[in-house]
Every structure is written in structure tokens, then in C-alpha cells.
């Protein structure tokens, strides 16, 4: 009895999606919803199986994932580095923060025409856009995290003779970590969003490209499949981030286990 309750508790987030799917399937079967508007989940599953067998799906998911991760690593590390530098040094903050905040207010997707002119529809274009999109949430939250570290703890560390290095690794960085993780999760969301928009507009491979091709041939099941895969990939990234968070923030009452 207890275990059933626990399984329900752990997976309560999946109940609603499954209900929606069931309702959707029923509506299609009963002819309430036209095939041309939204194909039945079973039709989408068929499309999934078809594309899986041709290998097209795996290739496209692979291409998109690689792009997303590459852009994330580049943009994320630059954002993290700037966040650390500007959190620790007021000189660095004085020099760069105003500029960065101005750039932040440009919607990065508005740069797509310019990016196409610069890079064409090659990999650089996607990498650039994803990196730019990921940069800001990581930068802003790393900076906020460091600025929010309890000054009383820093003073404590100083009185106990910690060097600047020790102060950073034992007090400042761990103190900023919860905020850095918030940035990470935002960044993962933006990573997929940017990539998909970029792939839809300018690409010759990847999930976004697959969806656009399917639209041209009126393969609505493939279009819906692509959208569902985005949702799953996004959820997967978020789950990974949460797992990391749980591992690193055990000390935080909000993440206590059991």
C-alpha cells in the first residue's frame, strides 16, 4: 500500500500528460478531431517507428543534441567566467557589466537575419545563437549568486585566516551555487528554444529541419512528432539539471533527501 502511494507520489507529474494523450486519442478515433488538424497519438507513434527504422530520426536528434550542447558549453563557460570575474572584481564589473546588460536587452533571435548574412546556414550560425542565448542566464545568475553570498560568512572566513583562494572555493563559490543552478536550468530551456528556431529558419539537418521538411510534404504526423520530441528533450535536460542540483546542494534544506 505504502509503495503504491510512493510510486504515485513520485510520478504524479506524469498523470496529466497521460490523460491528455488518452483524451486526444479518443477524440481522434471518434472523429471529433480531424486528421488534418491533429493526427491521433497512434499515428504519431507510427511516424516515430517509421523514422526510427530509416535512421532519420536518430540522426536528426543526434545532430540537434550535438549543436545544443556545443552552443551550451561555449556560451555557458563564457557566461560563467564573466559572472565569476564580475562577482569577485568590482573593476571587471565596472568595465563590462553595462555593456553586457545592454546586449542582454536585445532579443537574441532578432539577430537571426544578421547571423545568416554572417555565417550562412552553417553550424557556426546555430552555435553562435545558442551560445548567445545561453550566455545571459548563466552570467546573470552567477553574478547574482556571488553578490548574494552572506558577507558575515566572508568575514568569518577572513578572521580564520583563509586566503583569497580558499575564501573563493570554500565560501563564495558554494554560496553562489544555488543561484548558478537556477541559471543553468533557465539556460537549458533557452538552449532548446534557440536551437529549434534557428533550425526551423536556417538549416539543412536536425529536428527543426525535419519538422520544416515534413510541413512542405504535409506530413502532419511528423510535425507533431518533432514537437513532442522537443518536449521530451527539454524535460530530459531539466531532469539532469535537477539531479545535479540534488547532488551538489544536499546541504540545502530545500533539497534534503527523505
Amino acid at each position, binding site marked *: 500500500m505504502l509503495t503504491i502511494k510512493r510510486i504515485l507520489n513520485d510520478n504524479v507529474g506524469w498523470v496529466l500528460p497521460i490523460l491528455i494523450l488518452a483524451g486526444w486519442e479518443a477524440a481522434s478515433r471518434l472523429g471529433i478531431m480531424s486528421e488534418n488538424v491533429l493526427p491521433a497519438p497512434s499515428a504519431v507513434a507510427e511516424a516515430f517507428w517509421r523514422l526510427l527504422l530509416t535512421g532519420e530520426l536518430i540522426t536528426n536528434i543526434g545532430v540537434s543534441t550535438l549543436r545544443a550542447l556545443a552552443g551550451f558549453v561555449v556560451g555557458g563557460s563564457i557566461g560563467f567566467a564573466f559572472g565569476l570575474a564580475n562577482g569577485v572584481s568590482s573593476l571587471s564589473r565596472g568595465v563590462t557589466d553595462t555593456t553586457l546588460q545592454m546586449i542582454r536587452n536585445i532579443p537574441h533571435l532578432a539577430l537571426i537575419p544578421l547571423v545568416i548574412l554572417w555565417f550562412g546556414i552553417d553550424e557556426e550560425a546555430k552555435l553562435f545563437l545558442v551560445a548567445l542565448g545561453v550566455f545571459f542566464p548563466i552570467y546573470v545568475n552567477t553574478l547574482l549568486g556571488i553578490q548574494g553570498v552572506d558577507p*558575515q560568512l566572508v568575514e*568569518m*572566513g577572513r*578572521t580564520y*585566516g583563509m586566503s583569497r583562494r580558499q575564501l573563493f572555493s*570554500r*565560501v563564495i563559490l558554494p554560496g553562489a551555487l544555488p543561484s548558478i543552478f537556477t541559471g543553468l536550468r533557465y539556460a537549458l530551456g533557452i538552449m532548446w528554444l534557440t536551437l529549434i528556431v534557428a533550425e526551423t529558419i536556417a538549416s539543412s539537418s536536425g529536428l527543426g529541419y525535419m519538422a520544416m521538411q515534413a510541413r512542405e510534404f504535409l506530413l502532419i504526423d511528423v510535425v507533431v512528432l518533432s514537437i513532442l520530441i522537443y518536449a521530451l528533450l527539454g524535460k530530459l535536460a531539466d531532469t539532469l539539471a535537477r539531479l545535479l542540483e540534488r547532488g551538489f546542494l544536499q*546541504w540545502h534544506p530545500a533539497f534534503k533527501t527523505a
Partner: protein
Amino acid sequence: MTLTVTSLRSAPDQAPSIEQSPKGPIAFSLRGIGKSFGDKTVLDSIDLDVHEGEFVAVIGKSGCGKSTLLRLVAGLDQPTSGTLTHSPDTAGATRTRIMFQEPRLLPWARVADNVAVGLTGISKGKAAKEQALAILDEVGLKDRAGEWPYVLSGGQKQRVALARALVAHPGILALDEPLGALDALTRIEMQQLLERIWLKQKFTAVLVTHDVTEAVALADRVIVIDGGRIALDLDVSVPRPRRHGSSELARLEAKILDQLFGTGSARA
């Protein structure tokens, strides 16, 4: 040791009566210490000698400068004028530790690791771990060594902070109202713990407090600060263990309150 006292004596002598006392070597001494923040003078030419192993309580109304005095002694701030001399310890450097009003534990370090912060630059690894566990045993928290700080109660956190301050066997322990935020019963328990460890380790203790009862219960000597100056320097020669609420302590308490609020209003 004789050398130390001689070197201190060379400072302009303004408190000869204390200089001659038989209490032993001086741990630190303040001469004409003043501290101002902008136009506001917080401390005004303070002269004070504290002897090794002495337990001194500093008391005064809020804003009288007692915490500032403690921060100067602990080396957290620099005086605007005057000199502060620490006697060179027999072992080399005299270590001063401060215990704050808040526990200030690192939330991301387990209890034993928090205590080991007190050994930064002194010892590491297994040796540090053993010392940390030994001092945790002394404050009665050895079985909590592997826990995160958030599971501890306020009093337990302050005990961990005390262990962290004492793990490196400091010569001077500066206490900035460390028991102020605790409930009355936990506070009495902590006072007894503090006294027990002080009797055992024999460090010099400087306790800033606004609790007169606490001051006379713990200290050998109570300093009352008023308007940035020392208004009263009172010896508490009641033998230990002292009983809370004894008439002798009550008499001393009344004397301090008289000094703070003027005669007649002490019992108000």
C-alpha cells in the same frame, strides 16, 4: 615572560595599579585607544590591560562601543588612535579567535568540516579531523559530526561555533554577545559549558554582553563602558563554581546597574 612585561612597561603608563597586580603576564594591553567613524567618536582613549587567562566581561548600553572594542581586540578593525599590544605568546604567535552573535557556520560543510575551518593554515586532513572530533566531544556534539548545520538547533549551532573558535587552542577568545540570541535556559547551559572549557583550556576570554547577570556569573572582572570610556572596572572575586542568583552576585549586579543607570533606578 619577564621580557614581555618589560616591553609592555615601556609604553606610557597610565594605569599603574593594574600594572603591579599579581595576576601574571599581560595578554594584551590598550593604550589611549580611540575609534571614530566619520565625525562620530565611538571609543575615546581607552586604557586597559588584560591578563593571560583572565575572563573579562565588557558591558554597556547598546551603541556604547563595546562591540567596536571587541572588533579592535580581535583585529577586525584598526583603531583611529592609540596602540594595542599583544604579548608574544610563549609558542610564538598569540592566536585570537572571535565568536560572533550568529553562529556563522558554512551551510555547505558538515559539522566536523565547519569546526576544521578553525584549523585553516594550521593543520589539514586526518590530523585536523581528529582535532575537530576531540573538541566536538568537549562541547557534547561528537555524534553530530557528520550532519549538515541546518538540522541543528540554535544552541547546538553556537556550540559548533565555539568548537570552531577553540579547536586551534587560541590564546585569546573574543566573544561578541554569542549567547544573545538563545533562549534563557539554553543560555545558562551555554554559560556553564563556556566556563567549564575556559577553566580547562585557560585562554584569555573577552566577553561582550548586555546581560549583567551573565557578566557577573562568568567573569573575573567586569568593565562597564559608557560614552566611549571605561566607566567602571570591577573585580568579581566570587569563587567558582558560582551559583546563579546568589546574594553576592546580586550585589555586584546592582552595583553595575547603578553605574549604568544612575543610583536609585537600578531596580526599575
